[in-house]
């Protein structure tokens, strides 16, 4: 007897979801751009395949990244995913070894105990049953954690948990029912036949002592099959779709496909790969410092999936990148947000093309027509002076003259031929416009500045502002080396162009988001600091560093909330009681110094104060006094 009506729901669900996922993958594949298709094909049949399998094992089953961030939450995810995987794997092997046939249909593995109720009498069989019980116990322990998390998220070490919609609740209920119903079904069957191991056997024997176990088992097998079937059928309608989608995402990523600047299949797959685990919420300073809990990446992706207006969410973000670094699925959250910012009001953002089970045509993209389109035709033609090094202070640095003056001192000390590009006030670098989604308009400013830069003949562009640094490096097409001043200073130290006194001060370092996480410059500033002072750790270093809250990326954050974020960051930086808090960004300096009594200084200031004298002695100072001449068009 290899059939019983109760297996029908399970089989319907299983074959439905298998076919559905394959179908969806085909559609996704077809929607890929041509280069991405080639990448994926090459990746699927190359080295990347092994890489993907490894990643699937480590991340989708073991949940390594979550484990690293949060042990309890990781265990919960691992026990459910990896445990279930083991249950299926061992079940299939069990059916294969102990069943009447080899290569059984899946239900034989899932409902093995029902079809082989007296299995487990021999020692070997008993040992295998013990293994199966162990895996089931492993899953159930995770399930208990999940249930507790739903009602009290703090128990798994989470501060916040995502909110659910209706279908998600039904799917969740069916998911929760799967393993308890299996436990009860197997226990009752085992009880009736005197089989089973420490879990099912013991529980079954106890049930059998007061229940007609054999009769009682049958409804639970039905329940087990029904919950599985329901879960599979509902899966595409719920957030649990992230499970199969993530597999696809991993293959794509390992094939070298990236989010890019525009909405596409990859970003759409990313949106569906989010499990709403909530790690991004916990990482978000707007959540833990300012108590704003509706704008985090998980909510953004959910809103995109639900085709809601995301404009309220996308612009209310510091773009500090903390969630990006921590996302266990590796979704490029900041890039997705940037796509939505560029698309705000124009409709060419990421859309959910899946409605119900079916694919719908994406909303036709209307050409973006910005309101009162920005226009910078008033910018005067400028003629730069020739120089080897061009220094661009940036708008914000003009509000922190001590940084500017320090850089002038350092550049003078370097003995190099340098020119101050924006001494009398320059044109904005364009990044703030880009952060507001106005890339095309930013291009006008970029072109203006680019012209000044290449006309100067400089081989190096040094800037004091990480915001400028990022845009100079990524969005300008410059034939010059772009350096943040901390990098430049580090070079000066290495070349022994300048020498510095050791200051005998303890400092903590605030890594600016735009310089650290968003541009990958972590080490140079710290090395410069170590050269002149004692650098203390804060517990928020490198990738985990905090945002000061002053970020220009957030267009919506109100001043009181900004202060809350800044004050948290300032407190963390002040905790080791340093002599100075060092930073490398004028905006961070201004924001943090408002919240602490400890002196906040830019690295340039600290260096300028400790400079001994220029090594290139006798060299004539070559600073050009009036570097930029203004001539009206």
């Amino acid at each position, binding site marked *: 007897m290899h059939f019983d009506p109760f297996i029908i729901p399970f089989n319907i669900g299983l074959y439905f979801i298998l076919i559905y996922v394959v179908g969806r993958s085909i559609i996704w594949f077809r929607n890929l751009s041509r280069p991405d298709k080639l990448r994926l094909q090459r990746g699927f049949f190359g080295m990347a395949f092994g890489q993907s399998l490894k990643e699937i094992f480590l991340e989708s089953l073991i949940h390594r990244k979550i484990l690293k961030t949060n042990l309890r939450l990781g265990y919960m995810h691992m026990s459910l995913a990896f445990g279930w995987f083991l249950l299926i794997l061992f079940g299939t092997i069990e059916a294969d070894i102990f069943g009447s046939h080899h290569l059984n249909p899946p239900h034989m593995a899932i409902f093995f105990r029902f079809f082989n109720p007296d299995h487990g009498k021999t020692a070997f069989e008993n040992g295998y049953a013990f293994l199966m019980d162990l895996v089931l116990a492993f899953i159930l322990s995770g399930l208990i954690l999940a249930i507790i998390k739903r009602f009290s998220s703090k128990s798994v070490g989470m501060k916040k948990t995502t909110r659910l919609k209706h279908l998600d609740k039904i799917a969740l209920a069916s998911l929760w029912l799967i393993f308890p119903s299996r436990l009860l079904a197997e226990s009752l069957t085992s009880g009736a036949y005197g089989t089973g191991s420490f879990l099912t056997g013991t529980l079954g024997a106890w049930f059998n002592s007061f229940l007609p176990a054999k009769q009682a088992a049958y409804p639970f097998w039905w329940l087990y099959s029904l919950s599985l079937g329901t879960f599979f059928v509902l899966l595409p309608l719920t957030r649990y779709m992230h499970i199969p989608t993530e597999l696809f995402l991993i293959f794509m990523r390992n094939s070298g496909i990236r989010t890019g600047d525009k909405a596409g299949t990859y970003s759409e797959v990313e949106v569906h790969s989010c499990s709403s685990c909530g790690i991004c919420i916990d990482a978000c300073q707007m959540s833990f410092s300012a108590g704003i809990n509706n704008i985090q990446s998980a909510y953004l992706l959910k809103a995109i999936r639900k085709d809601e207006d995301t404009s309220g969410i996308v*612009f209310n973000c510091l773009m500090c990148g903390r969630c990006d670094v921590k996302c266990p699925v590796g979704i490029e959250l900041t890039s997705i947000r940037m796509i939505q910012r560029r698309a705000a*009001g124009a409709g060419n953002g990421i859309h959910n093309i899946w409605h119900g089970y079916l694919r719908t045509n994406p909303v036709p993209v209307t050409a973006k*027509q*910005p*309101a*009162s*389109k*920005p*226009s*910078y035709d*008033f*910018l*005067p033609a400028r003629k730069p002076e020739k120089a080897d090094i061009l220094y661009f202070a940036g*708008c*914000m640095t*003009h*509000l922190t003259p001590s940084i500017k003056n320090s850089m002038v001192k350092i550049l003078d000390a370097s003995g190099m031929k340098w020119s101050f590009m924006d001494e*009398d*006030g*320059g*044109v*904005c670098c*364009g990044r*703030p*416009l880009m952060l*507001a989604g*106005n890339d095309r308009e930013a291009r006008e*400013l970029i072109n203006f500045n680019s012209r000044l830069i290449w006309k100067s003949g400089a081989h190096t562009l040094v800037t004091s502002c990480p915001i400028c640094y990022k845009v100079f490096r990524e969005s300008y097409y410059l034939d010059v080396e772009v350096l943040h001043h901390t990098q430049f200073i580090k070079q000066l130290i290495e070349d022994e162009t300048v020498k510095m006194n050791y200051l005998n001060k303890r400092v903590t370092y605030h890594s600016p988001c735009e310089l650290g996480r968003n541009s990958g410059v972590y080490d140079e500033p710290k090395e410069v600091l170590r050269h002149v002072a004692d650098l203390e750790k804060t517990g928020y270093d490198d990738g985990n560093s905090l945002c000061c809250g*002053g970020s*220009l990326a957030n*267009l*919506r*954050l*109100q*001043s*009181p909330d900004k202060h809350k974020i800044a004050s948290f960051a300032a407190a963390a930086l002040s905790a080791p009681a340093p002599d100075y808090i060092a930073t490398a960004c004028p*905006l961070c300096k*201004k924001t943090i110094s408002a919240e602490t009594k400890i002196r906040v200084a830019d690295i340039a200031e600290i260096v300028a104060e400790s400079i001994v004298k220029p090594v290139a002695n006798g060299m004539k100072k070559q600073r050009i006094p009036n570097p930029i001449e203004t001539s009206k068009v």
Partner: protein
Amino acid sequence: MNRFGYSLSKARVIDYDANNHAVAEYIAEKEPSFRLCIACGGCAATCTTGNFTEFSLREINILIHRGENRKPGSDIRKCMLCGKCILVCPRGVNTRNVVITAREAFKKFGINAL
């Protein structure tokens, strides 16, 4: 019509009641800190754009509040969103979002720039 060599000139007076306040209301709703401006002019003094051309966020703010939308509708395009004004504002006005929301509003209400 007779030509007299002169004609009726448009009144310079701000006719508050006849003006369109939809833009001001839209901005105030989306960015409430817009209301906090006391026209100190700090923003205009530090302005990157104002260094190159006639552009004053203080003036724009006042004129939008009065429903005088034409000049702001044109001027608002000049802002580079660099954000210096945010650091200067004594009242904590979220100036950049005021500019962005104003641009939205001008589009929404079809107010043509000069």
